[in-house]
């Protein structure tokens, strides 16, 4: 059941990344995917009452990595705000195809 919740949360996160116009909400979407992948590991790591320490350690490290990614993303976001005075992704369309 936790695994099903995790896959639903992955889809919610991808929807958030793909559809939201605000940069902060995009970053929140990424964080939702990170947490739901962690939840999936935890859900699949405990079977029949036995908890596998491998899954736990993976999740702890992946939370740390997620924090690093969020830090870089937020610092880029601050720089975008300095350039444009806005966090709207539609204003960021100066890159050509």
């Amino acid at each position: 059941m936790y695994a099903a919740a995790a896959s639903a949360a992955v889809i919610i996160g991808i929807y958030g990344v793909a559809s939201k116009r605000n940069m902060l909400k995009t970053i929140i979407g990424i964080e939702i995917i990170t947490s739901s992948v962690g939840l999936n590991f935890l859900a699949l790591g405990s079977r029949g009452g036995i908890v596998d320490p491998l899954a736990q350690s993976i999740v702890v490290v992946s939370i740390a990595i997620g924090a690093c990614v969020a830090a870089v993303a937020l610092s880029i976001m601050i720089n975008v705000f300095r350039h444009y005075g806005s966090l709207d992704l539609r204003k960021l369309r100066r890159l050509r195809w």
Partner: protein
Amino acid sequence: MVDVEIPLLVQPLVILLSTAVLTPLIDIVGKQAKAEKIRDIFAIAGFVAAFYSLINLHSAISSAGPQTYVLGTFGVPAGGVQLTADLLSVYMALIFCGIGLLVAIYSVRYMEVDSGLDKYYALLLTLVAGMIGVAFSGDFFNLYVFWEIMCISSYTLVSFRKYRWEPVEAGFKYLVMSTVGSLLALYAISLLYGYTGTVNLKQLSTIISSGQISASPLSLYFTIGMIITGFGVTASMVPLHTWLPDAHPAAPSSISAMLSGVVIKTGVYAICRSLFTIFSPASFDYGTVLMIFGILTMTVANLMALMQRDIKRLLAYSSIVNIGYILTGVGIGGYALSHYPSPKLATPIAVFALMGAMFHVLNHAVGKGLLFLCSGCFVHEAKTRDIPELEGIGRKMTWTGTSFSIGLLALAGVPPLSGFWSKLFIILAGFSIPEDSFMKFISILVVLNSIFAASYYLWLMQRIMLKEPKPKIANAVEAPASMLLPIVILAALTIVIGIWPGAIIGLAESAGRVLLGG
């Protein structure tokens, strides 16, 4: 002598990461001693030491077989953190570290106008350390951690010149796409962990090939798809390539050479390593998918490249084209193994195709590194990336211009330069079963694409080298010697590999054989 003996396998990682940590400290010392270049020399020394230890590791592996090292006392059964190096990993690691070394030498003069160079070198070192770590990973979790080290350093390096709008935008686009990609790959890893209870590549392979898992083939194919999609974002396969043409021009040219030369190859490596090791190509048909995506990648990118006016954007699209060749080569190998059950027929073809693909990884790393470094020199002098304004600049900068033409010819596949051989191997592998019309069709498309690509390489060469220089660039002078050195080394390398391909073919072949299980 130090008492603690570091295993040969861990040495390059330890050297690179400790140099990365020490570089900012050395920078503080250097600033007080009014000798700022100490920091650059220190970083280059780190790369040289790591390269030397990789050469030692290579000779140790080729005489004594693959090496394994388990970090910590967690023990093998639960997985632990396992580093494994075989001939394929060390082949890739040598390419990564070699290009990193040349880029570091180039950066000494190229980046001197920028500030915050201590962070630049530290990030460059962690970028290479992350890539070598990916190549040395024996389990998926370790691979993911090193993968993120590599990705985070490259996001930061792409948006290094944060005072301009373009790097910041491109960096954000790259970050979002690549992070979602790696998280999808991690989700696939978590599913595999759920099916098998381990993340170790060797154990996964044993469990899956013995068929003792509850998962249906369909769900395993779902995992394969997630792995290809996740790592394919960094490898810039076509529907997922849109970050690349923005990120490469926006980054400093030295970093474009790194990204295009080696970072996207890490994506291809991760796809090949995880698929070929875990899912035996004889029972899972992912070769066809890789082949179709390879063809799609090269066709779309070729069409887009023709429309570009920006020199670095054109080179960025041409990187995607070359990723297409490599993916097709790998795909032909997988396809032959899954569609022709007799190993006597299929294995030589697969070895040949994978050898071509691995050889092309090296050739493209050298050739595209060369082209981006040269275009960095041009842009540095002319202050523009617009091809019409750069016309004829090769005549003003003879060394750079000549090397640039050599790089273009090599990637266009003109014999006897290096790019010719690897393309030839991939195409020959595709034609090796005359009855198979699908493989023949794919190979014909590869040939057509490669001719098409040659047309715009030659067109670019004609504009840069043969036209009369515009008045705006009349004052362009040759780049300084420390920027020319890596360029000339790379140009010489393309010629040497092209004329004496034997030794490198041996390396690439042993690397390709590793993917097929030794």
